[in-house]
């Protein structure tokens, strides 16, 4: 400090002195003048001094003089005291810190004084005095003490004097520590708390640095610091916690340091010893040491158990505490392990469990083997022993813990087990753990799960049909929710699963899996848990080796081969086990038990697929079917797991395309279906075929004709089962769709029209008056015949190839024309025959009384008839065969059947043309007595409206459409009288008479007759359909 600066401070000292020297009566410790004078001095002093500079002893004295006067005044207020302490702090820091700068006498006076000013008088249980002081004062005092201790440590280091070696200072020390601990615990501000701890830290480790001395004040420190640290509900600020933990740690180490106490373990020598002592090993320390006057064996025994109790209360620190605190706790624990392994042996298990608890937080990145490693191998052995016994007790407590409703408790135990296992793997305990998990969880499941069946909304076949429609855009983000939701929270389940992952990664899981997957479990629950544990073990095992394996695949071919050999058999064990489970799952009537076990089994396949990668391709032949089959399970849970697994397989082998997975492996699916179909009745297998067909298209149908034969055979035997038959006809419908897609996608429907007009029954192809004239004119007649409708190339060829049957010179042995006829349909004969077969089976089943089945068959017919129409000559006999039963459908009493029935009949009429005229006429004679038509007619004659309830109106409409289609295609082949009858029935609801085509004139006249000419000409308002549909007549 320069003289300049010196000069700048002195005036304020003088000013302060004047106030301080005032006589008792005049001096006012609380006056603003005093305050101002102190403030001026402090501000300028603080301002002038550079942080690291020293001031002369002279100046120090000069400053201290007014302070010493002030201190003699009895009634200083808090504010003034605060300022005074601040100035004093500056003095200590900048003047009295260097060795020999502070005389012992001064120090001896100052220490109790500062303590008193800050914390009141000692030895009192009454805390009102200390409580009444201002927070700022306490802070200033704490800082002053810190500087003071710092200064004393310098004196000690420089061997000027050792302040606390003098016993007369010890009472003051005790008081100071009490005050500071009080601040640390009860300080109104975080700043004060931190400062108090900091001051204590300076005192203990800079100044005293002696375990023996500290051992005297240890108990109070431990209890107060523990209170600070383990205050429930996060009342303490985390920075305070951190500092308190650090202080406590350092203190414990200082006092209990193994190097100093030199404890040794007295191994038990006899069973008697073991029976007497509660602890197995007794720790003793060498007492014959000057430094260990206080720290005797008795002391150790008494205090170490107190430390243990204190540490136990650390468990109150919740998992949610800030990561910084956790980090400090970790350091704390590690230090104790390192330095107090022997002397605090009774607390070490708590420390270990604390570390394992901390290991639950991934942010700490705790590696058991690093965290719990000691340089001394002997010590390490002892530690390992402690860890093992901790693991043992965790595993033993697991039985009660797993059933506990306390989620945190389960998670902590699981974490502790995981941590200990990662440090020292113990196969025996793992076995025990697995056993416990299996039995306890199965037991819990058995108690919780109801016996009731999983409700399925519809039958499996229909469910899978839905999948087949969505199969290409299957949801890929099928994140699986917990599977044991009934007994655990998702968090617990994840933790448990994680634990088994870790176990799997720690050692080859083959032995455990082999033992788990035995077949003698009583319940499916046990099987489910056994498989679930195996899945997790496997996952963990593969997860560990996976990155290397993948790298190998790219780097070194031979390496990859080696890796391949190392594929654990246990993966196949798990696969095999899951297959056996899935094969025995019934198609319907799924209980919760079976739902669980099949979900897990489906997961197994996914896990194996994920890890076996390319190798799994060989397994598809066996495992694809059960997975796809599970997609049609009545249980939504199973379906979810199945879709997850199928996506894994698709991702692993087919770049995420489920479509491709099924397309490429349709042969395996078909094969599996064929075996199952002949083994047992199943509608799901049929649905899977349908999915295959939808995805793989017609080319796969070609290969599984034998499977279709099995289906036809099943229809022969089991036609009484509606669901089965409906499933088959759904498949047939899809088959028809695919045939249509493959062969008729660019087929001009006009061509079908051509077939119609080629009918020999058409009226000579005449279309207009001119043609008629020409026909009558003999000279033109030849021309007309040549003017047949345009023919496509195919047909011309056909014409050329066909032999003229009228030819008189026909050789005798020529095969009749019919058989020679070239196959003209674009549909291959085989496919045509197949559809024909379907029609014949449908014909028989239409005598069945299931409405649903009728509807499905008619839907299928609707798809098939246009395809069959591509070979009209073949359509006729088929039509002849099904005509009677089709007429029954239209004449049915159920409108749900009439509607599709009429549609199919319309198609037949359209494609067969005049071939059906007689049958149509005959059918009309029956149909006109149909209840529906009669009530419609009655309605017309009474109200000029058709009012029919519900679906009946639609059914009526469909019959009318069919009749019009009949009139349209039959044309003049129906007697006029019948045409009139039919039109009379229809005309009421057909607004546009043009729809009657060539009969429209008749229609017009009838309409005119019925409703008058004006109305007949009018354009009708649209048919209005309300709830009880009404047809308004115009």
């Amino acid at each position, binding site marked *: 400090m320069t003289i300049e600066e010196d000069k700048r401070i002195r005036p304020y000292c003088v000013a302060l002195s004047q106030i301080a020297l005032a006589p008792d009566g005049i001096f006012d410790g609380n006056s603003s003048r005093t305050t101002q004078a102190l403030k001026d001095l402090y501000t300028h002093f603080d301002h002038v001094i550079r942080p690291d500079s020293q001031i002369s002893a002279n100046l120090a004295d000069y400053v201290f003089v007014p302070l010493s006067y002030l201190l003699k005044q009895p009634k200083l207020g808090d504010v003034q005291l605060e300022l005074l302490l601040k100035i004093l702090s500056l003095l200590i820091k900048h003047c009295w810190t260097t060795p020999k700068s502070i005389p012992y006498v001064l120090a001896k006076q100052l220490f109790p004084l500062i303590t008193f000013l800050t914390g009141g008088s000692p030895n009192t249980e009454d805390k009102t005095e200390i409580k009444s002081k201002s927070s700022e004062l306490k802070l200033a005092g704490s800082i002053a003490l810190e500087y003071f201790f710092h200064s004393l440590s310098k004196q000690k280091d420089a061997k000027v004097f050792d302040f606390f070696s003098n016993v007369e200072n010890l009472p003051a020390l005790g008081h100071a520590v009490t005050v500071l601990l009080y601040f640390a615990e009860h300080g109104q501000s975080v700043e004060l708390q931190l400062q108090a701890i900091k001051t204590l830290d300076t005192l203990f480790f800079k100044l005293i640095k002696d375990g023996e001395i500290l051992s005297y004040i240890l108990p109070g420190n431990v209890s107060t610091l523990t209170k600070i640290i383990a205050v429930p509900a996060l009342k303490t600020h985390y920075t305070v916690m951190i500092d308190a933990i650090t202080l406590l740690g350092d203190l414990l180490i200082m006092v209990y340091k193994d190097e100093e106490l030199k404890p040794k373990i007295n191994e038990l020598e006899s069973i008697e010893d073991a029976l007497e002592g509660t602890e197995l090993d007794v720790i003793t320390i060498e007492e014959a040491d000057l430094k260990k006057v206080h720290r005797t064996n008795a002391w150790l025994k008494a205090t170490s158990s107190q430390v243990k109790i204190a540490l136990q209360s650390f468990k109150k620190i919740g998992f949610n505490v800030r990561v910084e605190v956790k980090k400090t706790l970790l350091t704390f624990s590690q230090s104790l392990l390192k330095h107090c392994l022997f002397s605090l042996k009774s607390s070490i298990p708590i420390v270990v469990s604390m570390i394992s608890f901390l290991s639950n937080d991934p942010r700490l990145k705790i590696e058991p083997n690093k965290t719990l490693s000691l340089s001394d191998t002997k010590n390490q052995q002892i530690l390992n022993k402690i860890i093992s016994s901790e693991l043992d007790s965790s595993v033993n407590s697991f039985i009660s813990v797993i059933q506990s409703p306390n989620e945190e408790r389960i998670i902590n135990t699981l974490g502790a087990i995981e941590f200990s296992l990662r440090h020292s793997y113990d196969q025996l305990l793992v076995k025990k753990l697995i056993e416990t998990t299996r039995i306890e969880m199965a037991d819990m499941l058995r108690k919780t799960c109801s016996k009731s069946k999983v409700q399925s909304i519809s039958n499996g076949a229909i469910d899978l049909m839905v999948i087949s429609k969505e199969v290409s855009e299957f949801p890929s983000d099928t994140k699986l929710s917990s599977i044991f939701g009934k007994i655990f929270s998702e968090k617990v389940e994840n933790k448990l699963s994680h634990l088994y992952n870790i176990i799997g990664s720690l050692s080859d899981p083959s032995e455990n899996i082999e033992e788990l997957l035995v077949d003698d479990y009583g319940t499916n629950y046990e099987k489910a848990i056994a498989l679930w544990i195996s899945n997790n073990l496997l996952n963990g095992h593969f997860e560990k080796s996976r990155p290397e394996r993948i790298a190998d695949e790219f780097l070194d071919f*031979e390496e990859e*081969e*080696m890796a*391949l*050999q190392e594929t654990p058999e246990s993966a*196949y064990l798990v696969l095999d086990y899951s297959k056996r489970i899935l094969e025995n799952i019934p198609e319907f009537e799924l209980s919760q038990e079976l739902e669980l076990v099949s979900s897990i089994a489906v997961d197994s396949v996914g896990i194996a697929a994920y890890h076996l990668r390319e190798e799994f391709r*060989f*397994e598809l*032949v066996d495992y694809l079917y059960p997975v796809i089959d599970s997609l049609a399970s009545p249980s939504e849970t199973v379906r979810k797991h199945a879709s997850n697994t199928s996506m894994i397989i698709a991702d692993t082998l087919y770049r995420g395309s489920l479509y491709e997975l099924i397309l490429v492996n349709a*042969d*395996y699916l*078909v*094969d599996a279906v*064929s*075996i199952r*179909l*002949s*083994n*047992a*009745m199943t509608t799901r297998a049929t649905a899977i075929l349908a999915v295959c067909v939808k995805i793989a298209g017609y080319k796969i149908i*070609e*290969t*599984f*004709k*034998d499977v*279709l*034969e*099995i*289906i*036809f*055979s*099943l*229809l*022969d*035997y*089991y036609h009484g089962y509606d669901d089965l038959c409906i499933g088959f006809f759904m498949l047939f419908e899809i088959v028809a769709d695919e045939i249509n897609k493959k062969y008729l996608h660019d087929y001009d429907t006009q061509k079908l029209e051509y077939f119609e007009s080629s009918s020999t029954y058409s009226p000579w192809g005449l279309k207009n008056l001119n043609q008629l004239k020409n026909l009558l004119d003999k000279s033109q007649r030849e021309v007309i015949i040549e003017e047949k409708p345009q023919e496509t190339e195919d047909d011309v060829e056909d014409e050329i190839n066909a032999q003229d049957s009228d030819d008189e010179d026909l050789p005798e042995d020529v095969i009749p024309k*019919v*058989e020679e*006829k070239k196959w003209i349909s674009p549909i291959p*004969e085989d496919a*045509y*025959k*197949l*559809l*024909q*077969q*379907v*029609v*014949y*089976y449908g*014909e*028989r089943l239409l005598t069945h009384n299931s409405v649903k089945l009728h509807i499905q068959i008619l839907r299928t017919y609707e798809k098939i008839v246009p395809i069959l129409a591509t070979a009209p*000559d*073949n359509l*006729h*006999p088929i039509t*002849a*065969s099904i*005509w*009677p039963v089709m007429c029954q459908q239209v004449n049915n009493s159920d409108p749900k059947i009439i509607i599709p029935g009429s549609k199919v009949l319309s198609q037949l009429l359209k494609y067969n043309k005049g071939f059906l005229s007689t049958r149509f006429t005959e059918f009309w004679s029956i149909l006109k007595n149909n209840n529906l038509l009669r009530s419609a007619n009655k309605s017309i004659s009474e109200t000029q409206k058709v009012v029919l309830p519900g679906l009946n109106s639609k059914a009526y409409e469909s019959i009318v459409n069919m009749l019009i289609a009949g009139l349209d295609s039959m044309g003049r082949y129906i007697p006029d009288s019948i045409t009139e009858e039919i039109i009379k029935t229809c005309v009421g609801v057909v607004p546009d008479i043009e729809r009657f085509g060539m009969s429209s004139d008749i229609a017009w006249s009838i309409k005119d007759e019925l409703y008058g000419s004006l109305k007949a000409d009018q354009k009708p308002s649209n048919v209005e359909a309300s709830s009880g549909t009404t047809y308004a007549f115009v």
Partner: protein
Amino acid sequence: MSLLAQDSKFPVHTLRGHTSSITASEFVRVPISTRAKTITLKEQHNKTTLKPFLLSADDSGKLILWDLTILRPLKTVQGHNTQVLTIRQLGIKDNEIDSRYFGLVLTHGRDHTIKFWKIFDESGVISFDLVYELPVNALNFSNVDIIDDIIVTPNTQNSNTFDIYDISFLSHEKVDDSRLKRLFEAVDVYKTAVERDYSKFEEFNIKRDEMDDDVNRTDKFGIIMKLLFITKELLFIGYESGHVAQIRLNRDSKTFEIINIEHQHYPNPVLSLTFDKIHNVVLSTSIGSNIVIHSLEKKDAVDVKLSKFGKISGVAVVHDKYIISSWNGYIRFYKLGSDHTSLEYLANFKKPKGLLAGDLNIIGNINNDAEAIGEKSTTIKPTSLEVYQEVEVVDPLIKKGIHRRDLKVIETSCLAVGYGDGTITLYNDL
């Protein structure tokens, strides 16, 4: 509920690749490439591990080589332009390899050719190259048979007689058919039998008295129906007349000796000849439901009638079991009785088929008699039978080197039944 009876034996897989009727098949044993180097080195001191592949053929001449591990075709070749009658692998007999011919397969079609194909090399790499084509007479439906380097076929001109060729030229680097040797030509067993008064063939006389001429116009053996080598010297021949001749060949003197002639099948043609090594018997069948067991030891034969079976279409032998197929669609599993004169029933299988069928040949049939429309026969006929006898892989090192699924194929016996609808069903654990 099941379509099949309780005693059914279910196939494990069905191979669907042919679109017309299966006519022949053979399990082809191929050396398997093991994965690790160490094993390959060690392998040289051991017998090569062989994995069976199925080579099947159909009515259209198409050949398919199936990998039984993945159950999919490895190669599909239009081998012949019509029905294939015989497929045989060369260079392997009872798992003993003759490296000169190992890798070759012959296929014999009704297009009058025997084709020799190189289908794999020493290390088991699959190819499908035509090596040589031998024109033969395939007017009759007879098979051809091969043992070591000799092949027996019906004679080029006369279907009643047979020829035997030496095909050792195929083992040469460069195939030179000028080395093709005919060891025996137009061997006529009937002529020799009559000449040497081996038998009076009384059945021919009975026929004249009691049977209609239309049934069997010949009083000779007629054309050859089946050929079967037991050893290089011992040959069985089945004839159109139902006679089964057993003859001993002498290659050096180019002569032969008749050991036995049996006539149980007369007057129906012999349709199959099968050798059962364990019991040292040959089984022959005709269009009837009886099976004739020829004892090689006793040089006689017993006629066993199978009840409720229909007409037998084929016989295969595995272990001590016989697998017999019938034209009515059944595959049945039998065991030879201890007295070698009876058969003990074990299990059966029949491919399901619908009762109704689509039929394009009823054009113009427009009557309403639904029963007449679409009715069809309810059987799918088994048309070929082939058996693979499992081999145990003993060496643990080799075992480890083989893919587990390949290992399973090697160590599991397998029956392949070809059907008229082009499918092949596989049975395991016979």
